[in-house]
């Protein structure tokens, strides 16, 4: 029974992963990615790590891939018209990544054979075991990863900022019903609005800049 389920979902994971990289339509690729992630989650559960399986579905399939879909639909990306495989830089980068990946895989298999590495026990992948490892043994790497994510979030926010500080935005640029895109703290009051008494700190700020 377990072997059948394993075979089914392992095959599903591989096939859908192939679809992800080969399908022309980005929407189909993304939906196949969901299937891959779901199949891998089932494999996690089969290996006795239901917590990892649930998190895999909740975080990856349930949130991150939805964001991919959101971006694809928002930009209205159509079917890929010509293949990009021709660009040589990408080819070399992909080859390098593949070599590194195969090396890591080989290293894992090689080390798994030696007696120095003990196999995972049900206790170590249970919720308590995982938490103890994550917040005990591996606290520093865990915190560093958290910091990395924070940096990524701040970076994305800075990159996505509207260039409102560069100058006032013209009236025709904002959609009716939308809020004016100027930030009054940064750029001073909206020139198109009847002005009320201007707070002193704003005028001094503008003179300074």
């Amino acid at each position, binding site marked *: 029974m377990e072997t059948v389920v394993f075979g089914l979902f392992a095959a599903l994971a591989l096939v859908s992963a192939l679809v992800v990289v080969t399908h022309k339509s980005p*929407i189909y690729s993304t*939906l196949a990615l969901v299937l891959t992630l779901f199949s891998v989650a089932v494999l996690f559960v089969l290996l006795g790590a*239901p917590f990892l*399986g*649930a998190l895999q*579905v*909740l975080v990856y399939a*349930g949130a991150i891939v939805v964001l991919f879909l959101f971006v694809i*639909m928002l930009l209205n990306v159509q079917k890929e018209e010509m293949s990009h495989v021709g660009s040589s830089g990408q080819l070399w980068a992909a080859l390098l990544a593949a070599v590194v990946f195969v090396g890591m895989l080989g290293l894992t298999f090689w080390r798994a054979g030696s007696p120095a590495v003990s196999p995972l026990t049900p206790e170590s992948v*249970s919720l308590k075991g995982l938490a103890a490892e994550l917040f005990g043994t591996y606290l520093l790497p865990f915190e560093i990863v958290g910091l990395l994510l924070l940096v990524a979030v701040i970076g994305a926010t800075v990159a996505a900022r509207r260039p409102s500080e560069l100058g006032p935005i013209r009236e025709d640029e904002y959609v009716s019903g939308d809020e004016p895109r100027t930030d009054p703290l940064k750029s001073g009051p909206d020139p198109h609005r009847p002005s009320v008494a201007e707070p002193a700190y704003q005028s001094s700020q503008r003179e300074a800049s």
Partner: protein
Amino acid sequence: MNPEIVAPLLKYAVMFAVFINVAPIMNWVERRACAFIQDRPGPNRVGPLGLFQPVADALKFMFKEDVTPTAADKPLYLMAPALALLPAFTTFVVIPFGPDIAAAGRTFRLVVADVDTGVLLFLALSSLSVYSLVMAGYASNNKFSLLGSIRASAQLISYELALTIAVLAVILPVGSFHLSDVVAYQRTHLWNFIPQLIGFLVFLIASFAETNRLPFDLPEAESELVAGFHTEYGAMRFALFFQAEYTNMAALSALGVTLYFGGWSLPGIEYPHNLLGAALGLATLVAKIAFCMVVYVWIRWTFPRFRYDQLMRLGWKVLLPLAILNLILVAAMTLAGWL
């Protein structure tokens, strides 16, 4: 007759029987209640009080022509409504619906799937429900559908965060993801909605957004998007979306009453550990879910729809900080031993 296999199937059958009937009953309740709120009679021709109206509607859905738009992306278009039902009819497996019962010399826990990850499994499965909406909107090849899908994906992500953090705060003092343990905890303590009022309000608001109900029904806003993601769907395929929406509402209500209102239990009452106790537990749970469903209807016909930017601002700038504040408060109270 291996009880290891028969017992879960039987329990699933019981829960399925409850949840499959939600949509037809709610169809009648929704229309009668909205008519009552708007001071008009509502559907009252088919059967006494119009009670057979859902049957008439179901027959109509079945006999209508099933149209597939020529420009639609066929496989996705046909798959989307079926996929909508999948999370709707799997999430409730982790909801406990009665006391442990002793039968045939064994004890049975009245949960379909008594797994370690309990509430996480619920959240994981329900987070997949957005894919059917996205697929439906994209595959219909219609600008209103596409807009509805884009809104749905952004909205569900935004509110899922607040919802999950609110749920996390309930798990904290209990110390277990098993929903049975959450119910057991509430039998010895106050119901969770009293110490965690902020968390409960966040959960309530986010659950309206998660199920695309007014005031957050932006993905299908009739006045702007015709019918949003299901504009191009008719006949039974539309009915499947309808069914999924109401089943999702009931499942989320079941989670809400289990987390905050004692689930199948009532304070100070001990149900017998036999079939009678099971029936009483199930009846209590269903009564609580029914109350939540009425609240859903009541809110829908009372509040206007949010604007899209208001929706996003509420989700990210109000609900998320409130949920985190609630989590910190609960963590502090748990550490201090007050909970």
